[in-house]
């Protein structure tokens, strides 16, 4: 993976010094909260319901064991012994004291990490395919380009204060696992007929209040020109994006308002001044960065392992895990293993300090010391020998990370919601917990097969509910939490936005609503048809009709569900400088 050189170190160190000074000016009262807010957000520091939350960048989801151990250390020393992996491949700590934030950043810098632009109206952390570099369907490894874009976007002087946040996703595989269609800019590394490398560029995708699938602005931008090209896109956006209405400020609204042709014309008009100029990426720079992503020292191994094959035959639990959590690898004899962070009773994406240390050990032992975070809030050991799978399974199982549910109903994508997030209309973690507990029979889950259930606590859609096969959105009705349900959303190559099935439900009704949706699917499906394909084939009518056919009991037993980690630890004193004081 990429390692900092002296320049990266210096930039991060100077950013910390700047932030430390900003924090001390806030603590002294020199900066008022409304002045400080924008400054702290540029560095990933939010004020949530209970406390400051610090979001740390894990650029394109790639990290090593030392970084994971640092997270464990931060969780223990500055937080309440756990952290939360997000749908944008970042990690969040929920109980941070403002005065500790600079020191946390200092500690992070020792393992080459930072919180630069993990929030705020600026270019956010670039996200990517969690199987980059190892996937069988990969055409070009996107990671060097992701790193080059990380550096270009970090502290970019012209784009620190855009109309709204700006998100990049990049993939280099045939199957899009980075949700490029729902990012402000979605890049796919491709080869043209001559075998040259370039990017297909989508623009104006996004979720939130107005979900939009990105539109192709260019089918091929040669790799050398990608910085100048995206710089022109962001420059046009910075000038013309709306600043009068928060909900209309994303680039998707501008692209819709201008139309893609006019938008493209603006971009190209700007680009002609910089295309081929100094920001053109050099072969030397690409080579320099690519050298950090060369394949690890793989061994020559047989294509399959007899012990694993035998165990698959004999042990159903192992077979289930192999089927769901183990993914093919481009190198013979290797596999990628997804560690499920979704098990009943735990908030999706939450990991305790102890578990972080254990995961770091697994990475060192089985996967060249590296880890990936997925935008589905799981972790990946990308380079595991097939002959190690049985042993790894036992260890992961003992740690609670071997739930064989990747891609299944209980692999729920869920935002922090009403338990933490100050923007929430409704709780999402307890709802995820209730649904997971309701449908925890592994045979049933395997029978239902691949399905994505996403729960967002508000219209900001951090859990990407619009592209969930079943999407649940928390809405506020006269101060009470309600949930709107949609079906038919999808990420990947055939991205689509889900459609709301009708009026919303209470917390206690949701498990039954999900059960009814699944019932319709089971009745209607062809043999191996996935839920989403059935929805596409039979349409949304039968689902809607059945769900609303009879009244649904509001099962209060579920709505009492609480998030157990929430009450943990010492009480957090709301400080005088907090906006909630």
């Amino acid at each position: 993976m990429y390692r900092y050189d002296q320049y990266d170190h210096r930039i991060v160190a100077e950013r910390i010094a700047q932030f430390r000074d900003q924090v001390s000016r806030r603590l002294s009262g020199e900066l008022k909260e409304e002045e400080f807010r924008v400054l702290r957000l540029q560095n990933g520091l939010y004020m949530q319901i209970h406390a400051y939350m610090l979001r740390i960048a894990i650029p394109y989801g790639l990290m090593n064991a030392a970084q994971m151990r640092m997270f464990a250390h931060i969780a223990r020393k500055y937080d309440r012994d756990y952290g939360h992996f997000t749908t944008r491949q970042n990690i969040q700590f929920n109980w941070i004291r403002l005065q500790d934030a600079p020191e946390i950043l200092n500690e992070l810098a020792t393992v080459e990490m930072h919180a630069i632009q993990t929030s705020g109206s600026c270019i956010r952390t670039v996200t990517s395919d969690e199987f980059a570099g190892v996937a069988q369907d990969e055409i070009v490894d996107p990671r060097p380009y992701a790193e080059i874009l990380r550096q270009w976007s970090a502290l970019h002087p012209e784009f620190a204060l855009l109309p709204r946040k700006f998100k990049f996703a990049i993939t280099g595989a045939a199957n899009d696992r980075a949700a490029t269609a729902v990012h402000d800019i979605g890049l796919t590394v491709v080869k043209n007929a001559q075998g040259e490398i370039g990017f297909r560029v989508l623009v104006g995708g996004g979720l939130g209040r107005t979900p939009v699938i990105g539109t192709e602005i260019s089918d091929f931008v040669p790799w050398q020109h990608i910085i100048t090209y995206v710089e022109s896109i962001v420059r046009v956006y910075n000038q013309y994006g709306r600043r009068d209405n928060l909900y209309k400020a994303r680039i998707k609204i501008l692209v819709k308002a201008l139309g893609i042709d006019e938008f493209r014309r603006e971009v190209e008009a700007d680009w002609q001044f910089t295309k081929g100029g100094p920001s053109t990426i050099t072969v030397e720079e690409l080579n320099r960065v690519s050298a950090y992503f060369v394949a690890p020292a793989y061994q020559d191994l047989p294509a399959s392992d007899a012990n694993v094959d035998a165990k698959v035959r004999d042990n159903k639990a192992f077979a289930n895990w192999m089927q769901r959590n183990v993914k093919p690898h481009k190198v013979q004899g290797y596999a990628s293993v997804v560690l499920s962070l979704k098990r009943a009773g735990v908030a999706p994406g939450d990991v305790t300090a102890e578990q972080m240390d254990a995961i770091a050990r697994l990475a060192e032992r089985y996967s060249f010391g590296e880890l990936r975070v997925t935008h589905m809030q799981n972790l990946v050991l990308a380079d595991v020998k097939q002959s190690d799978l049985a042993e790894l399974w036992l260890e992961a199982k003992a740690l609670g990370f071997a739930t064989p549910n990747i891609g299944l109903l209980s692999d729920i994508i869920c935002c922090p919601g009403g338990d933490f997030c100050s923007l929430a209309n409704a709780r999402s973690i307890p709802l995820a917990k209730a649904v997971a507990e309701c449908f925890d029979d592994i045979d049933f889950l395997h029978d239902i097969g691949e399905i994505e259930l996403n729960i967002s606590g508000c219209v900001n859609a951090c859990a990407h509910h619009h592209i969930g096969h079943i999407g649940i959105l928390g809405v506020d009705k006269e101060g009470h939490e309600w949930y709107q349900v949609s079906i038919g959303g999808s990420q990947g190559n055939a991205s689509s936005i889900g459609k709301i099935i009708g009026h919303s439900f209470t917390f206690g009704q949701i498990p039954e609503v999900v059960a009814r949706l699944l019932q319709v699917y089971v009745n209607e499906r062809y043999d191996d048809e996935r839920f989403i394909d059935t929805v596409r084939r039979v349409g949304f009518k039968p689902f809607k009709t059945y769900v609303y056919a009879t009244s649904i009991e509001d099962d209060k037993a579920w709505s009492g569900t609480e998030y157990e980690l929430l009450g943990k630890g010492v009480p957090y004193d709301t400080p005088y400088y907090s906006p909630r004081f």
Partner: protein
Amino acid sequence: MMIIKNKAIVEDDWNVLRLAGNDTPQSVVVLPGKVIVPLNVWLAQRDALQDRTDLGVWLASSDRPEALQQDIARFGVIAVDFPKFADGRGYTIAYLLRERLGYKGELRAIGDVLRDQMFYMQRVGFDAFAPRTDKDINQALKGLSDFSVTYQASNDEKLPLFRRVSRGVANG
């Protein structure tokens, strides 16, 4: 009034004309003396103001820098207004004035100008800053030296870092 210019705190005698409630760009009276007028006043009263040598112009964040295409060389001072510091349009305006319109004179940031934005402002081409008057200008000056190295090319550094220096290489 004190401003920051070329990284030093200096006395400044330009007056920035801002339209009051009843003023229109056509009707407002541009008093004699060194005045920085809004772009729309300059465009509306161009004929009358033509011969004044003690005139600067300022752009609102919604103004287009190309509107100055014809006149850019006649101004020794151009200012860009930041109505609030979170409005980032002024950064692109400055960049375009420098890089596309070739403006070489003083480029001044006015309005909600705070120390924490000044390093970026300097990078895109501002060389003068009128920090908000309720803030300590000596402190604001420090903002210009927050960083000693940057990744991107902009107006200050014509080359991105990867062309400026020879960077580290992977060693496993």
